[in-house]
């Protein structure tokens, strides 16, 4: 047995193992690709408390689905909402409906009632400091004589000055949602809505869960519309966005993958007039994909759907090796046997693989876990495809297997008429023109690192989200203040200092309100201050309390009894007490507790518009332990930093590839790299002329372009003779396929992938056009 055969058999064994592993993965383990778009983002470890607060807020939000069922008439809305919940109630394994517990509602006040004297609104506190005794006497008497004034949170004596009821009123306004008829009710000018808060029992980001939940929600919606035809449904939840992203990505995998394959098959047919080369190329690509998937799964323990989307474009690069071999086989003498031909091609093939793998490894240098996986997947895919070509193609393709097609002759003839760069006047003029045009184009490039580039949710989801947050006046989970301290008390005090500033922003209508733990449990310091304030201003001898007694004809005994009664309700309220009661349920997420000796909490803002952010975040300035946390800006700034960082990596990669190629090409090395470099610059200039904003994904594409473009440079330099059409054919076929696959990526509705695809499309086309100009015919013929 020849060595070639041995290697081929060995590889067959490896491929069988891969095949077995894949069958095991898909059929036995039933693996499902990960669809969490956030997995594409870097894990940041700079500030554990900040990160914890982000994941805390996101985790709380992720499993929630909020549905509003509305109609002009409350009864209609209720009927529709009942139909909706009945449908979902049948699937208790999927949804947890939050029950409206009446017991909790009547009980939630009792804890505060025991501490009512120290619960004041900021306004009341200011009034206590500023207003004269007469003000409080008037207020108490007016309350005393008011109609229907008897009962409420207790008797008049328990809250003679109405301070506690004012506080409760302010707390109630932290949300516009009210219990009504055993439903949660919220309304705007046109409609009355039933609020249905749902909690998913299945992971929102799992695709199987999405496939169950979405039809169920639709079914529930249909039931609601059947009950009340004019019912309006507003739905929001991470799962809706995730499901949309999944289906969009799945759709794109098939579009890009199938389009890419069709392009390759057609091209091959026109070039070789045979299905054998096509099936061989497909075989190498297939093994590349299977191998990449197997090893990736072993390395990462999961596979992201975006990796598969990106991997679909791998087809465009993995074919290069097969095409290069086939084109050379076609051109070579029939008498030259294939293993010998391969030996001749091997140095070039090795360099192309290395250059591409270096290109992909540049992607792996990013801190984005998703990109890292894509890079590893792609690099592995290339290695497996390359090995298939090297081990199998010489055995499978003999000297007479291939015949040249008509397209090859026409296309090949074009090379002769292609301009060749020489050191002359025309070249100089072209160079100056290029420098000017490119310089102008590149100077027009802006930059955009907005996180929204990663995802592009459909308009109706955004519209629902906006309407929902308007109706519920809920705080945003991605922008808030993070407050830290060495004890719970310090955190509460710092919150109070922050809130004093936020109150001014509320007055200036920059925000509509805030949610904070200290709204419910004031710091011990504040509690003590308030107690002495009330004792001095309201309960002191000769103060308003005595005034009431005089007016109503009561004696000193009554005063003493009332004062004693009030002071029993001045016992300090502790955070732990509050956290133990069900009343704290809706606010518990604001308290992060203790991490490594640091206590932290979140102060969430309601009614915050993007325009107000720059002004609002200033509230943290100069306050110890208070920090503005903005997940959106955080991610955008990471994207921005890595755009800059990756730009340097691209330049570095050029240097590395140059060093790698130098031992073989020496003084001609620049001819291999120059087409790719020029095409990259021209692509940037074109993007600039099209008023595009540069983002990370353009830069990542330039990295990949380096890997692809260097292949073409190597092919051309390996066969410097212009009469030899083989490399030109290989470049053309490979570039056409790359354009087909990446051009289709440019059709993606995800802005990031689109930017990537467009850059590859322009860049590859330009390399293809430029590469023959850098041929070195003269020297080679010597």
């Amino acid at each position, binding site marked *: 047995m020849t060595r070639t055969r041995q290697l081929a058999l060995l590889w067959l064994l490896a491929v069988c193992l891969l095949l077995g592993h894949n069958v095991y993965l898909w059929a036995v383990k039933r693996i499902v690709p990960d669809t969490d778009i956030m997995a594409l983002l870097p894990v940041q470890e700079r500030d554990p408390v900040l990160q914890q607060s982000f994941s805390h807020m996101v985790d709380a939000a992720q499993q929630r689905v909020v549905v509003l069922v509305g109609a002009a008439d409350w009864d209609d809305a209720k009927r529709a909402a009942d139909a909706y919940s009945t449908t979902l109630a049948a699937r208790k394994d999927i949804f947890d409906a939050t029950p409206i517990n009446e017991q909790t*509602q009547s009980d939630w006040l009792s804890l505060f009632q025991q501490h009512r004297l120290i619960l004041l609104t900021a306004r009341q506190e200011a009034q206590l400091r500023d207003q004269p005794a007469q003000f409080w006497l008037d207020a108490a008497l007016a309350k005393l004589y008011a*109609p229907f004034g008897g009962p409420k949170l207790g008797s008049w004596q328990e809250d003679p000055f109405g301070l506690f009821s004012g506080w409760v009123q302010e707390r109630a306004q932290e949300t516009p949602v009210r219990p009504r008829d055993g439903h949660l009710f919220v309304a705007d000018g046109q409609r009355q809505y039933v609020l249905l808060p749902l909690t998913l029992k299945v992971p929102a980001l799992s695709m199987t869960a999405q496939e169950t939940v979405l039809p169920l929600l639709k079914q529930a919606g249909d039931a609601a519309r059947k009950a009340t035809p004019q019912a309006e449904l507003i739905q929001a939840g991470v799962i809706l966005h995730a499901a949309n992203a999944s289906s969009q990505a799945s759709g794109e995998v098939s579009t890009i993958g199938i389009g890419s394959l069709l392009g390759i098959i057609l091209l091959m047919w026109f070039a070789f007039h045979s299905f054998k080369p096509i099936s061989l190329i497909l075989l190498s690509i297939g093994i590349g994909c299977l191998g990449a998937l197997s090893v990736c799964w072993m390395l990462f323990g999961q596979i992201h759907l975006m990796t598969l989307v990106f991997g679909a474009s791998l087809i465009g690069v993995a074919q290069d090796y097969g095409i290069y071999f086939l084109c050379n086989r076609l051109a070579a003498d029939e008498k030259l046997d294939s293993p010998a031909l391969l030996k001749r091609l091997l140095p070039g093939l090795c360099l192309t693989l290395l250059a591409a793998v270096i290109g992909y490894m540049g992607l792996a240098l990013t801190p984005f876990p998703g990109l890292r996986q894509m890079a590893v997947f792609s690099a592995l895919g290339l290695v497996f495809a390359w090995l298939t070509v090297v081990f199998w193609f010489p055995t499978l393709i003999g000297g007479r297997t291939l015949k040249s097609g008509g397209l090859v002759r026409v296309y090949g003839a074009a090379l002769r008429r292609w301009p060749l760069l020489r050191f002359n006047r025309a070249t100089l003029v072209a160079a100056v023109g290029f420098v000017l045009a490119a310089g102008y184009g590149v100077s027009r490039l802006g930059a955009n690192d907005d996180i929204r580039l990663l995802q592009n949710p459909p308009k109706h989801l955004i519209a629902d989200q906006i309407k929902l947050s308007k109706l519920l006046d809920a705080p945003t989970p991605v922008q808030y203040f993070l407050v830290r301290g060495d004890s719970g008390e310090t955190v509460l005090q710092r919150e109070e200092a922050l809130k004093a500033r936020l109150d001014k922003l509320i007055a200036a209508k920059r925000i509509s309100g805030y949610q904070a733990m200290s709204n419910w449990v004031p710091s011990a310091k504040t509690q003590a201050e308030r107690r002495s304030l009330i004792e001095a201003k309201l309960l002191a001898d000769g103060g308003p309390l005595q005034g009431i007694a005089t007016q109503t004809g009561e004696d000193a005994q009554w005063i003493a009894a009332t004062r004693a009664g009030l002071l029993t309700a001045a016992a300090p309220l502790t955070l732990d007490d509050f956290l133990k009661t069900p009343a704290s349920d809706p606010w518990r997420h604001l308290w992060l507790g203790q991490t490594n000796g640091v206590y932290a909490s979140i102060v969430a803002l309601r009614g915050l518009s993007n325009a107000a952010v720059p002004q609002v975040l200033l509230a943290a300035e100069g306050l110890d332990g208070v920090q503005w946390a903005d997940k959106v800006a955080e991610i955008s700034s990471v994207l921005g930093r890595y755009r800059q960082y990756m730009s340097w990596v691209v330049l570095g990669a050029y240097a590395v590839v140059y060093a790698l190629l130098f031992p073989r090409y020496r003084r001609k090395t620049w001819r291999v790299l120059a087409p790719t470099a020029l095409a990259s610059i021209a692509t940037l200039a074109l993007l600039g002329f099209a008023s595009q904003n540069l983002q990370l994904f353009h830069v990542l594409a330039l990295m990949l372009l380096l890997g692809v473009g260097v292949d073409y440079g190597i092919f051309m330099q390996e066969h410097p003779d212009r009469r030899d059409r083989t490399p030109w054919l290989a470049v053309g076929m490979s570039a056409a396929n790359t354009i087909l696959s990446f051009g289709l990526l440019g059709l993606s509705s995800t802005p990031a992938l689109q930017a990537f695809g467009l850059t590859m499309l322009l860049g590859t086309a330009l390399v293809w056009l430029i590469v023959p100009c850098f041929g070195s015919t003269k020297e080679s013929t010597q």
Partner: protein
Amino acid sequence: MNKLKIVIAAVSLAALNHAQAAVPAAKIQAMLAKPPIMCGRFDQTKQLAGMKKPLASEGRFCVVAGKGVLWRTLKPFPSTLRLTRDEIVNYQGDRVAMRLDAKTEPTVRVINNVLFSLLAGDLGQLDTLFDGDGSVDADGWSVALKPRQAALEKAIGTIKLEGGAYVKSIVMNEAGGDRTTIVFSAIQSGEAAMTKEEAALF
């Protein structure tokens, strides 16, 4: 006025279930005059637990169908309460001591409905919130209302209404022992019932 807010909050907390009350509502409805506008005098006596003397106050009230209620305490302290579809406002003299907007407090409308119904004797409207027990004779009717919700009962206690063509008295008994009695008299109806001052307030 804060007490009123709390009543409001408590009413809003109550869940409404529809059940038939043991109230001869139809007969009472037939007796009620239900004029579009009616005004009159009220005398209120409050007996609070722990206080020796009852607190007496008096003033005028107006109930305007489709608009709301005006409640003017004249003695011992002038204070005006106006309840309309969109807000509840309390004036002490000319000063607005309290304003509750339906936009920020959605239950304002529910509350105003209840108070309007109480003063107008419109028992049908109250049926969803209260368990009723009543009797009717030739001279008039009386109804005892007990909140269906424990939370509401804790907050406002039980209510007794008496009336004929109009509601004559309301007695509220709270769990804590406080008791409020309001007696209505000199009730007039029609446009002329309202003074200029009162009309201006609406």
